[in-house]
């Protein structure tokens, strides 16, 4: 009973003091004298200037809350005391009244300091478009469809989200790269605008074209029945088809007709990949364009896709499944693969058409020149000419329209002046109208008005809301409907925002939100950071990797679509998978042609993010797993708990590759080291719970990778057995991952809170701060029914909130 009473009081702390807000606002100094007795009774013993436990020296910590670092420290102190983490269990702890009095006395000041910062700057600073947002914006402005991110310099930031305005930087190298990307886009738009659609490039390839005339080992082989075949073989660039290349860089649509040969006996399909690239040793980068399974008895089928292809790049089509039999290139040339039962893909037809038609050409033309260009009279050497009229008026209209689109809000003459000025001055120097306009277009697209979201402290104006919504939900600029709602001011109405959200979630662009948010929240964008060791994980391949990513992204999308409970972050009775991934999960019988919802057996360890192969892969390196790294990852990304960096000069713990000691034994010793225990009792439980999963997310009962090395040293070494049982920081025992997931899923509110915070950080370009917590709690409250916190509801209530609609 007493316990409950304390909880109720704790929950009441924020609201108790909300009323004092106004008078506390200018109090940016924490009254250290008032809390000194609490600190000396409970904290100084370990956190003084001598011991500095965990690197925290409270003697040295000032009360100047206008210093962001000082403020953060005190906020951590508040959180640790509130959660009961500090003072630690083994020490004497304050009674509940003492503790509440302390919390209540510092809360208003900590909050007020945050509010004060907000009023000056807003929660987020000027936010630069991310590379993805930049690409989508430029493509939308010119109505083009070529990739642009390749021109930009990858960000090397350490934070979770690329749009975190506090971390973003721009060097002059970046500005130069932006300019190069804009130039490429402009060149493409001009090319499309004047291209004769009847010059569209096309190819119709049949088997004899697909088989290279002087067939090398890597090209498709003649099968003897008139078809072209690519065998499942070892080596790079297999299945490359020289005739799929063009001398013109463009976007192409493909239809390929294929079937399989020598299917596996166990009824599994043959997985086939289509990759694009130059496909040769001096330019080895390939990108996955499409992948699909071929089943026996389904006959020939057509596969369709479109891809951007640079001049000289070509496609390769090949079986890509390392669980299937594979042969050497020599075997391919000798052509005995067929009789030896090696799986292969037969390619019968390839139809290729450049993505170019009247509509595409016209859209690009209007993006650049409005409707001022008209078809030229017969006999004229250009296809289009300018309409007759006042040139200055045309320039004014075109530049003003272009700037309005690019800046995502109306522009006045003062803003336009320098951009118009450069066009007029070029016209005066006898530049052609098209050449002169290009100056303004380039300048507009490196202007900070385009490159940064324009937001002023306080409540956002409707246009800023429109941009915030579209970059959040589409990674793209606002469409006409959002801009209309900005123009009439209705976007300031939460319910109107909600209506747009519902509409926007049905748009194909919403997939960009799903991809970017999961890439960054769950680190999926790091999936290529390490390549699994081919000796230890020989069955890992590109299609498996893409299938893993599809699982997590589709799963998240499904959570939103069905408005599932936040407990599904940790646990569910289904997952999203295709046959390749099902095979990886030892659930081959549940395999489907494409990634889709599959009900899991009752005893399955899968279901929920924690045991998805993608997550297990990004939290491991290429050879080994570390319960520390995985533990920290779960705490920070899923449970939303702050983990301090290890104190300087503490040796790290890594798996013992001699295989003599398990990581558990090592960690047990590590926890005895002073200063280590306080974090490791939090980190180790989730880490241990995941020990049954190897670096590619497959189930393991023994440490085979370390055993392989151990055997080289000692032939008699026995593989160590994985132990995943342990207890949580609260002392709740678990036998393994299933139990652990149940424990995590039970704290649905905690899962929901972390998800809401991550979502807010991504939506607004700034991490959730101390004073934002009340807003987050409000969102959670609105999103729960009978204790179930629903994931789409959280998204909806965030978009409705003032937190979302303020800088």
């Amino acid at each position: 009973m007493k316990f409950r009473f304390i909880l109720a009081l704790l929950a009441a702390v924020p609201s108790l003091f909300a009323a004092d807000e106004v008078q506390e606002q200018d109090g940016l100094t924490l009254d250290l004298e008032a809390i000194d007795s609490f600190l000396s009774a409970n904290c100084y013993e370990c956190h003084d200037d001598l011991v500095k436990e965990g690197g925290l020296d409270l003697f040295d910590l000032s009360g100047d809350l206008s210093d962001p670092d000082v403020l953060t420290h005190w906020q951590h102190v508040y959180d640790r005391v509130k959660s009961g983490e500090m003072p630690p269990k083994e020490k004497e702890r304050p009674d509940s009244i003492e503790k509440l009095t302390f919390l209540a006395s510092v809360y208003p000041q900590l909050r007020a300091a945050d509010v004060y910062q907000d009023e000056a700057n807003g929660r987020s600073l000027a936010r630069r478009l991310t590379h993805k947002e930049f690409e989508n914006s430029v493509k939308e402005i010119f109505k083009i469809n070529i990739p642009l991110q390749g021109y930009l310099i990858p960000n090397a930031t350490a934070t979770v989200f690329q749009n975190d305005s506090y971390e973003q930087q721009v060097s002059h190298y970046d500005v130069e790269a932006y300019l190069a990307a804009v130039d490429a886009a402009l060149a493409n738009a001009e090319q499309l605008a004047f291209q004769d659609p009847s010059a569209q490039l096309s190819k119709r390839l049949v088997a004899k074209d697909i088989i290279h005339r002087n067939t090398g080992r890597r090209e498709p082989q003649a099968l003897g029945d008139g078809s072209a075949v690519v065998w499942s073989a070892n080596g790079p660039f297999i299945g490359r088809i020289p005739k799929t290349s063009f001398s013109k860089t463009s976007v192409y649509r493909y239809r390929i007709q294929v079937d399989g040969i020598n299917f596996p006996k166990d009824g599994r399909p043959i997985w086939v990949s289509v990759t694009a690239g130059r496909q040769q040793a001096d330019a080895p980068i390939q990108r996955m364009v499409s992948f699909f399974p071929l089943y026996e008895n389904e006959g020939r089928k057509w596969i369709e896709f479109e891809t951007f292809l640079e001049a000289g790049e070509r496609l390769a089509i090949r079986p890509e499944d390392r669980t299937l039999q594979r042969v050497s290139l020599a075997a391919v040339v000798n052509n005995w693969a067929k009789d030896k039962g090696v799986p292969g893909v037969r390619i019968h037809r390839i139809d290729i058409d450049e993505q170019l038609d009247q509509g595409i050409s016209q859209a690009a033309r209007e993006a650049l020149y409005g409707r001022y260009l008209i078809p030229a009279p017969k006999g004229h050497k250009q296809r289009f000419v300018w309409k007759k009229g006042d040139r200055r008026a045309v320039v004014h209209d075109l530049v003003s329209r272009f700037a309005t689109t690019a800046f995502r809000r109306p522009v006045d003459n003062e803003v336009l002046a320098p951009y118009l000025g450069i066009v007029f001055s070029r016209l005066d120097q006898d530049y052609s109208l098209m050449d002169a306009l290009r100056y303004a277009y380039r300048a507009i697209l490196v202007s900070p008005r385009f490159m940064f979201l324009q937001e002023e402290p306080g409540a956002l104006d409707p246009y800023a809301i429109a941009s915030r919504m579209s970059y959040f939900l589409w990674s793209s600029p606002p469409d006409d409907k959002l801009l209309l709602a900005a123009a009439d001011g209705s976007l300031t109405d939460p319910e109107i925002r909600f209506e747009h959200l519902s509409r926007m979630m049905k748009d194909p662009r919403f997939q960009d939100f799903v991809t970017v948010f999961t890439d960054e929240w769950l680190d999926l964008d790091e999936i290529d950071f390490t390549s699994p060791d081919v000796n230890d994980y020989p069955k890992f391949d590109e299609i498996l990797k893409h299938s893993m990513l599809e699982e997590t992204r589709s799963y998240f999308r499904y959570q939103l679509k069905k408005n599932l409970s936040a407990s599904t972050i940790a646990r569910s009775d289904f997952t999203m998978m295709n046959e390749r991934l099902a095979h990886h999960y030892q659930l081959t019988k549940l395999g489907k042609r494409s990634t889709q919802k599959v009900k899991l057996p009752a005893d399955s360890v899968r279901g929920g993010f924690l045991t998805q192969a993608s997550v297990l892969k990004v939290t491991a390196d290429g050879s080994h797993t570390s319960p520390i790294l995985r533990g920290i990852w779960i705490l920070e990304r899923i449970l939303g708990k702050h983990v301090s960096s290890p104190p300087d000069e503490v040796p790290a713990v890594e798996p013992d590759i001699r295989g003599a000691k398990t990581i558990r034994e090592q960690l047990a010793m590590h926890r005895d080291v002073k200063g280590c225990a306080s974090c490791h009792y939090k980190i180790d439980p989730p880490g241990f719970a995941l020990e049954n999963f190897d670096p590619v997310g497959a189930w393991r009962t023994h440490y085979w990778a370390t055993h392989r090395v151990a055997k080289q040293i000692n032939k008699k070494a026995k593989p160590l057995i994985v132990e995943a049982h342990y207890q949580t920081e609260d002392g709740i025992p678990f036998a393994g991952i299933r139990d652990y997931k149940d424990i995590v899923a039970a704290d649905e509110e905690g899962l929901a809170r972390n998800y809401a915070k991550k979502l807010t950080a991504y939506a607004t370009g700034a991490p959730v701060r101390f004073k934002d917590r009340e807003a987050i709690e409000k969102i959670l409250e609105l999103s729960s029914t009978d204790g179930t916190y629903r994931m789409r509801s959280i998204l909806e209530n965030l978009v409705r909130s003032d937190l979302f609609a303020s800088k």
Partner: protein
Amino acid sequence: MKNVTFTSRQKLSRRTALRGLGASAALPWLDAMRPAFAKEASAESDAKGGDPTRFVSISLALGLIQENLNPKDAGTDYTASRYLEGLQDIRDEFSVLSQCHRPDVVGGHRAEASILSAAPISGSASFRNTISLDQYMAKHLGHETRIRSLVLNSGNTASPSYTQNGTMIPAQTSPRAVFEKLFVEEGAASRKATAQRLSEGRSIMDIISADAKLLQKNLGSGDREKLDQYFTSVRELEQRLEGYENWLNEPKPDIEAEFPTDIEDANRVVERHVMMLDVMALALQTDSTRFMTLHLDGGNRTINIPGVTQGYHALSHHGQDKKKLEELALIETQLVGAYGRFLRKLKGMKESSGSALDNTMVLMSSNLGNASSHRNTNVPVLFGGGGFRHGQHLALGTAQKQYPLTNLFLSALHRVGMMDDQFVSSTGTVTELA
């Protein structure tokens, strides 16, 4: 990139190129651009036959095992340590400095940002970096070459090179792309287009600066700071575009070298490192740039060296485990070997006064001493070339009283002719090397 050969032109410096074009046309511009102290430097370099002085930094994110690097005895008669055994043929071309640190630079891996800036790290979120040594040199002297500076990495795009406003310069990672930039001539049409683009680029930067004033009126202080950074970068680009324009019509150096083929496999990082060093040597030989940094990040790749079974980063946390130390030593031996190979290469390039090595300082260092426990003291330091008195093991500090590495930075600054009194925390120059 085997069998790198060169055409008969032994010395392909900027000066050679100028002579071909008529020096009178180009030199006035150079003089106009050159700050006062660079003139002195140029007087000095004229005295030694016109060879420029250059600075190269090779940095490692994970340090080197100090017991394997630092000799046990100091002085010129030091006994070669395990890592230095392979460099004994060029023993007189470099020195090894032990017990050095960057004063007040702590924070383990976070100190990577201060490898060349030596900016004290407060451990605070509001930490702002200052200009790195290479960029400071390039800022004042970089305009004398086609490329002001090269910022490279054998793995990812992280770098220790920071601009004046504390922004990291993202590193280039493709030897092929660097090679193209340095040596592959654009066609006449493309050059013309580039010229137009550059001049357009400059007028665009003008407009942005004009708009900037208008925009900043309505901003909060936080935003103003953010946008200031953007405008500074815009202005810096403008200055660079001006520099490019001046170089545009001068032919790129004519060399005969095999085109490097990028290695995509991240596990082959040492091979990538060596390949990049080869391109860097070409850049120096042709005087395409005088300031370069090459960083090797601390990613956890399982490097393809026989006997290495674990990720590089994981190995760096060896905790004195013998097996791990041995695996790490296999990697580090190759990294130190690559440094030696680079010195030898420069030594083989003849210049008017001695070799390219005599005119090029080559520093290899790290932010970490003992990476296993994230210590930023007793960091590895190999310093070669540049005409200093080498062949020494300088035990300048002690475990308790570390020697400021910034003194070496100041020595390097003076060597390129920038006679500053201090670089960040320096207390003087390294007189033992003079």
